[in-house]
Each structure stands twice: as C-alpha cells, then as structure tokens.
C-alpha cells in the first residue's frame, strides 16, 4: 500500500523587500520542515520557528569599497597642507622641478627668528604626508645633518640653490659622512 509523500512548503525566514536583492536565493536561511525517510512512506513535521525572522538590509559602509582610509585622508591632508602644490612639485618623482639627491637647497622656517638652513640633499624619504628630506651642511669644521618634514606647517619654503655638479649615482648619499677611522 503506497502512501503519498507529501512535501510541505519549506518554512523559511521571511525577508524584507530591501533584503531580497541582497540575498540570491530563498535557500539562504530556509528550514527543512519535513524530513523524508526513504522507504518508510511517511514524514516528520517539525516546527522549528513559530514566527518568521525578519532580516534587515545593512546600511552602506561610509568608506567606499576597496578603499584604504589612509589614502583618502592623505590626499585630503596634502591638499590642505599644500594648497598651491609647490611641495608636491619639488618632491614628487615625476615632477619636472623635482629635487634630487646632491642638490643644494635652502630651507626657511616659520619661526620668529626666520631660521634658515642650507645644505646638500643626502636623502629624500617619500612617505606621503610623512615625506622628509635629510640635509647635510658643514658649519666650519662641524658637520650638521637635519631632517625636515616637507609637509609640516613650520616649513615656510624651500629655495633651490644649485644642482649637483655631477649627477649622483645613488639616491641616498650617506657616503658624504666623514670616515670615522680616518679622523682617528
């Protein structure tokens, strides 16, 4: 005697209209209410949820997808700190006015005494907002090195003094430092 295997409609979790587009199929969170036992000819009904669960659609993320907040903020900050763009002109690699290792440069500071420093560029450390320049100068017989944050508000201007006589064959000129063994 065969019995009809009745398949009850799956009791699923009802979703709000907004969420339907997000969920691809109704099987995202559906219940198997009836369990068919083969060769038995009957079914078991289980009521797992009395009321359907509404799933709300999430609000969009404030950060655009795939973006890094550091990049977004740096772009913003640089445009604020360098509105005319002269710093970017001097220190971006691709710029025609770009400074290079070996050039002599004069830095003017935003201090009461209008402090200045003249020196050879030993190294340009490019890190976005954190870009800095290492300058070396011989004040009498004393060597002085100074690291200057390019986008700092304490830096008023960079004045280009002269280009290197011979193009430096490397980016970082730490060899300009005197040999300590020779001094002894």
């Amino acid at each position, binding site marked *: 005697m065969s019995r009809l295997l009745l398949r009850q409609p799956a009791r699923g*979790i009802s979703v709000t209209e907004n*969420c339907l587009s997000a*969920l691809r199929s109704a099987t*995202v*969170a559906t219940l198997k209410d009836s369990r068919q036992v083969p060769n038995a000819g009957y079914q078991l009904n289980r009521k797992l*949820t009395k009321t359907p*669960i*509404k*799933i*709300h*659609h*999430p*609000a969009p*993320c*404030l*950060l655009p997808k795939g973006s*890094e*907040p*550091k990049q*977004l*903020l*740096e772009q913003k*900050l640089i445009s604020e*700190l360098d509105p005319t763009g002269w710093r970017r002109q001097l220190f971006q690699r691709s710029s025609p006015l770009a400074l290079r290792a070996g050039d002599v440069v004069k830095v003017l500071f*935003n201090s009461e005494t209008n402090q200045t420093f003249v020196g050879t560029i030993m190294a340009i450390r490019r890190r*976005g*907002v*954190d870009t800095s320049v290492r300058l070396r100068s011989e004040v009498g017989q004393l060597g002085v090195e100074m690291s200057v*944050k390019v*986008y*700092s*508000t*304490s*830096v008023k201007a960079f004045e280009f003094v002269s280009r290197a006589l011979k193009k430096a064959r490397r980016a970082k000129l730490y060899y300009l430092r005197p040999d300590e063994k020779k001094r002894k």
Partner: protein
Amino acid sequence: MVVSRVMATQRRTLLSSTVVACSRRIFSTSTSSRRELPPLAEFVSSFTTHHVAEPVMTMPTDLHTDISTTIPIAPADPEHRRLKRAELPLPVLFDSRQAALTRKQLPRRTGAIAFKRGMMSIFDEKGARIPVTILHIDRAQVTYVKTIEKHGYCAVQVGAGARHPKNITRPMLGHFSKAGVAPKKLVQEFRVRDESGLLPIAHEITAEHFKEGQFVDIWAPSKGKGFSGVMKRHGFSGLPASHGVSVSHRSAGSTGQSQDPGRVLKGKKMAGRMGGDYVTVQNSKVVKIYPEFGLVLVKGPVPGPKYAAVSIQDAVKKPDIE
C-alpha cells in the same frame, strides 16, 4: 453449621456497617456547621505574616468538628503577605551588589566598536607631527540594553560591521531582528554608570559620538606572538654568545634553588604563548574626526593588528563628556 456461618457473616456485615456509621458520625461535619475551607497557600501564610489577625469565625467547641477549624484563619488581604528582601527595612550592606554599584568607577556614556585601519601622521598648527591611529566606526548600532532592574547593572550592547545572514546562527539572526538592525559582524557590551547613559535600541553610534580633544580608553586583544621564548616574553638577558656557552644562548638558565624548596615555584617565568590577550590603553587623545567617513584619529598606537576590532569608550580617569 451452615446457618451459623451465614449468621456470622451477617453479624460481621452488620458490625462493619455500624463501624462505618460511627466513623462518619465522628469525623464528618454536620450540615449546620459546614463551611468552605481556605486554600492551602493562604492557610500556610497565615502562620508567616507579621500581623496576627483576629479570628473572624468562632470555633465550635463540640467534638464533632474539623481539627483545622481550631486554628484562627486570617482574612484574604493582599496587604498582608510575606515581604520581599528588597522591601524589608534593612540597611544596605557594604558587601552587597547595591553598594558595589555605587562604588564602581564607570564612564557615563557608552562606547563604540571600531576597526583599526593603520597609522599615519598629522601636523598641528605649530607644525609638530602627531602619530595617529585610524579607527573606523563601521555601522555601530545599539542591539540591546541592560538595566539594573532586569540585569543588575547598566550596559549598552553595541553591534558593528556587517555580515552575510547565511553565516550567522539562527539565534543571533533572531536577536538582530528583534533589535531591528542588520546582522552585525561583532557584538560587545559597554558598561555605563546609570540609566542616563543608556541609548535606544537601533540607535546608530557614529564618529560624532566622540569629540576632538577628548580622552578615550581603548582596549583590544594584542597581536599574537605565538610560542615565544623567555627573552622575548619576559625580557630575560639570555647567556653570553661565546666563552664556552653550549647551545643555550637564549635560554632562561636556572629555574630555582637547590634542595630547598626542591621544586620549581609556581608562576616561574618560562617560554610559552605570548600575545592575544586584552590590553587597555588609557587616556588616548582623539586628535581628529572625519564623520563623512566614520573615522576617528587617535594619538599614538592601539593594541591589536590592522583590520581588527577595538573598543573605544570615554576615559574613566578623565571628566565626563558633555
């Protein structure tokens, strides 16, 4: 003989019937003095109330009465019931939960869950460089609220991030549905001082919840360092690199004394798993806020790796905000 047996049985039945009749007479109430008996709970409570009620009904003194009627029965008055412990006029004990709540040092406002998104630097008006950590408050919403009446303390449960419903358990889906929020990636509780710090459910906590220049406490699990040696984990100096030291340059060396105590003491610093435990950084300054991106820039480092969730709340050791 048969007749006598019949007689005997008849006599027995007669006797039994008379015995039954007697019992009925002794233990049953007469119809004239029959009354409704009170329910058992009320009957029992009549012994435990402070107020001793006067007997409403007079007791019949004859033998043919119920034993229960000899005891006075209090009237059914809702006022006269057993008092709960909280209603008793007792002083609040120093060791009680009530007193502990008044001593607890907590921020007034709730906190938020943020995701650590790296570090960068900012320059202030004077030109000084401030290293900052970028924290992203991603769709933080209140999912539940805990109160003193129901839970014994005040707290706000916050959920942040977003997760696909297929990856969330059914009980949690129901929890989020009840709150009226989308399924969250992370859920955490923030204790607040009292009911004034509680927020409505589904209220969104944005970056504007924090003010520029305020101080915050940040806590998160630190970066895991795995099974690390004694030099990294406890700052031991190790052994010399040469001069005959064999194979134990980074070891701990001795682990104790000699015959006394004759064992390694409990808590001896040894190699083991390092990191992955909660670290709180107190009094971090909020340097800048970008509400359009939901970003909070906080001075200095923050525990945990990049993209991990951290908890921020108003600093406990600083004055209240607004």
